[in-house]
């Protein structure tokens, strides 16, 4: 009698364990690389909007996603701060376990905490330069490490590079195609193949802003990627829009 009751229990347990090891390849997650620009060229409202968008992106993170927060390089000797972490790859796609969900929530909590640190307004006052090129180089490095994951580069910036080499504060100072070709020839442009680039916070209404957008369009093309007009915006209210069409 005892054996007849115990045996089905263990058999059921064995079946349950077997189901846990599915043949379907696990979900690899998505990699979000976020460049955060809190330079003095951006006002408080823009920073709040960027932070809100980033929080939204964080809220939409799923189990297995990877998040990298990079402070836009300031140039000079002050290093940019960065934080990169991810949740564990889910064992089964589409059906995260309770433990995975709990870890995801913990991850989001930590990400929000890091976000609040990076958007520190007190620190913003002391930043005088913005090295977007350096940030893109570092983002390319992270994107390369993402391997098979889909990668989205979200730039929360006005895209005005302000380094001694390239100052975009005036329209006339914005480099032309020749400069980009020279960089490409010298292989000084980072490779961003397969990376979905989304810009939020850029000036798209003024001539200077349009010139800057044209420059970056050409630059990203040289970096083997493409920024659609819909992804080069001043403000993105819905975090779900942080994606490329067809991706």
């Amino acid at each position, binding site marked *: 009698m005892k054996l007849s009751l115990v045996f089905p229990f263990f058999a059921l347990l064995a079946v349950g364990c077997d189901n846990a090891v599915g043949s379907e390849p696990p979900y690899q997650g998505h990699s979000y690389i976020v460049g955060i620009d809190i330079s003095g060229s951006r006002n408080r409202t823009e920073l709040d909007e960027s932070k809100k968008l980033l929080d939204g992106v964080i809220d939409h993170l799923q189990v297995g996603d990877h998040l990298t927060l990079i402070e836009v390089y300031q140039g000079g000797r002050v290093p940019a*701060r960065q934080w990169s972490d991810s949740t564990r790859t889910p064992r089964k796609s589409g059906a995260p376990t*309770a433990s995975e969900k*709990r870890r995801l929530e*913990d991850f989001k*909590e930590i990400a929000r905490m890091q976000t609040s640190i990076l958007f520190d307004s007190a620190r913003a006052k002391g930043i005088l330069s913005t090295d977007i090129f350096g940030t893109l180089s570092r983002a390319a490095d992270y994107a390369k490490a993402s391997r098979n994951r889909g990668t989205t580069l979200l730039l929360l910036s006005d895209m005005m590079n302000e380094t001694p080499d390239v100052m975009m504060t005036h329209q006339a100072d914005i480099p032309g195609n020749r400069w980009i070709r020279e960089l490409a020839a010298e292989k000084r442009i980072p490779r961003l193949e397969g990376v979905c680039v989304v810009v939020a916070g850029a000036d798209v209404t003024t001539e200077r802003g349009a010139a800057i957008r044209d420059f970056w369009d050409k630059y990203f093309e040289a970096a083997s990627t493409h920024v659609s007009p819909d992804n080069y915006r001043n403000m993105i209210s819905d975090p779900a829009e942080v994606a490329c069409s067809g991706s």
Partner: protein
Amino acid sequence: MANIFSPPTSNDVVKGGRFGRNGTDHSSAFSLNGDYPRTPRFQWAGGVARFWDKYMSLPNPFWAKPHPDAIDDGDENGVYAITRRTDYWFNRELAQLEQEAKLLAAEWAEKGLPRHDVERVGVLEPEQVLGMKCLELFRQWRKRVRTKMQDQIQSRSAALNRLIGESRAESNALEATANERKNTRSQIEAFQQFKESDPSRVGYDRIFKSSFGFWIFAGILTVAEFTANFPVFRLLLPMDSTLVQLASTLGEAAESHTWLAGPLVLFQDILLHFEAFLVALIAVVILVLLGKTTGSSARSVVAFSAKESPMAATTIRAHRRQHLFVFIVGFLGIVSVLSFLYFSRAQIAETAQSRVHSDSVSLAQAQLDQQAAGTDLAKTAATTQRVTDANRTLRQHLDDAAYAITVQRINNAIVLLNIGLVLAAMTLGFVYKREDLTDRQGEHPALRPLRARLQILEREALGHARGARISMSGAAAEAGRINHLLESHPLREWQGKQDRLQSVILQFRGENARIRGLDPANVIAFAQPSTILFPEVNEDEELRRPTEFNQLLQQLSEVETEFARVAAYAIPSGTQPTK
């Protein structure tokens, strides 16, 4: 004129002499019957003598050889034992006579008497007195010896009579036990042949007959006990922090299952607290098992009665004995488990509260670390995770603490519930019990006491036989002693006694002459013969044979014959005693 130096008649000795004390000489301690009052002069001396004879003549343990007297005194039943005291008495009286002779000699010597140069006509007065006393002492000695011997013979005869009576009584008792044993054996054989007129089945059926229903109820009881007690174990056994977080997450996830959330949460909780689950399950299963077993045993104890089914009495007694043991052990086990649960519930609130306190401290420390991390992104991530974990654990343990307080508050009610569930399990075991003792090995209940009675009777028979043998042996020994005393001729020493008494007159004369500085041969008064004429004694004179002695010997013979007859069939052992 008759004097002591003239031959007396034989009757003088027996009837007592015509010479006796005249009452004038108080210094003499002489007594006719031996019970004379002692004078102070000799009282202490006699005491010392008695003391010496009684204590100081004991054999010295340091002597290499035993004291000669000890050897002589060994036979307490012989003639010597009887005449020893008489000899001692004779020697003592003779010593006093000799002392008196010396005193008289001294008194007469002071006065120069008897005159050495004058012939006396007749016996000298002191010598006459001393002679008469010697004569009287001899008579007394002879009388005492005969009396002592006759008394001893009579005493032995009485003992013989008593022992014959005892032998007869023991023999009769032996025969009575033999008859009683025979009757008892007959009864035992009759009961062994006894068959029950109505050989009905010895057993009982289940009151609750459905096996399916039994298992359903058993399962319900187990589940109820488990549900009532599992939270206690869950709180008592601390859970890994990871499992705590997982439990919390699962609990939140279960909310989506709406009405199934309750069972799901409980089920998940059970699986996550696997240690507590195992312990609680084992405890509950044991509790239900103990209850069921105890109930079953109770039915076995109360359902059967050896009186109602005498032919199955042995089986029933063995059966009841075993189940009584199981019942007691099961009951103690139930009490132990319920006590454990009760006392555990009584302290879970403190346990849970201590965990809350510990978690609060951990959380405060994590928060301090988080503040200390400042804007350091790496440190902030780690400390934030710690704060989150600590918060989650604290919340879980706060819930546990609240639950523990509630459980502790209703502890008495829970224990009543536990008792009720155990009683239900016992009832289930009671009503589901089925037993059949038809294959019985019993016997009639009267057989056991009859066998015990038979055994007692056999022991009594052996005791009676032994008593009879001892009494007969003692009686035969007494008869032998009587014969020995009758043929002992204790007066054969009469010549020695007379010789010693003859020396008293000579001692008087010698002492008188010595004091006066004369030779007794020079005293003319002492020229007369000094020999005391004692009566002739028939040393072969036989002691009087007790009149009942022959009859007693006859009775002893009859008793021995009777005992041999009875012993032939009445003594339980194989060896039959001889006469």
